[in-house]
């Protein structure tokens, strides 16, 4: 199935969103490696692998548990470490 990852913070440099192809039974924790693979050809001033690892995934209303089951055409948002205020 296809899902879309909306980007914020340091991930903005890769575009506003990234589309990934995942297995039909994928859960949130299954997003990380395909996402890293999709970004591997980009140059960044930071460790992409490390930042993906330290990020969480969310919808507009909640931060998702790592075991949360994904659905076709789901829109996820990647949340790198935050620094508001």
């Amino acid at each position, binding site marked *: 199935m296809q899902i879309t990852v909306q980007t914020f913070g340091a991930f903005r440099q890769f575009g506003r969103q990234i589309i990934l192809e995942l297995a039909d039974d994928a859960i949130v924790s299954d997003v990380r490696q395909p996402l890293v693979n999709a970004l591997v050809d980009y140059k960044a001033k930071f460790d992409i692998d490390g930042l993906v690892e330290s990020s969480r995934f969310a919808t507009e209303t909640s931060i998702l548990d790592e075991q949360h089951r994904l659905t076709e055409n789901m829109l996820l948002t990647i949340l790198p470490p935050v*620094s508001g205020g």
Partner: protein
Amino acid sequence: MGKIFVDVWDVTEKPLDAMAGLAYVTEMPNGAENLFVGTVRNHNFGKKVLGISYDVFVPLAKQSFLEVCQEAINKWGQELDLYVVHAQGRLDIGGVSIVIAVGSPHRDEAFKACRYIIEEIKHRAPVWKLEHYEDGDSEWSKGCELCSHNHVIDAHNIGESKAHIGENKAHAHD
């Protein structure tokens, strides 16, 4: 029963207004109004800063502000009036990035609730800072990893508390 106002404003269209926050929480039953104003400073970790661009996941940020405000009410009373507005977009030095205002019948609750709200927002709200430096470089601030656990702040010792995140990693912010 108090009231809550939370929002995110695009500062290119609508600069934050501390006095508006203060006015919102100034009500007849309140004997104390506490105001926190976050501004952009001209340095960070030894580098000269010209400005900061704030990136915000608005729907979740507003929800996190509401959750933090509700937690403050649960801790310090239903009478609290609360106002939280965060900036989105580019701010120069001295620009206002966040306004938090708390109105309460008594000062102790107003101080504690205001401190609690800013500390929790720093750790939990989906907001990111891109710092712009004098040498022309820009860099995203290193932030706090979000986690599934709520942060533990001792409501009775708010002035001395440390926020805990993830696997008991404690850290502080400016």
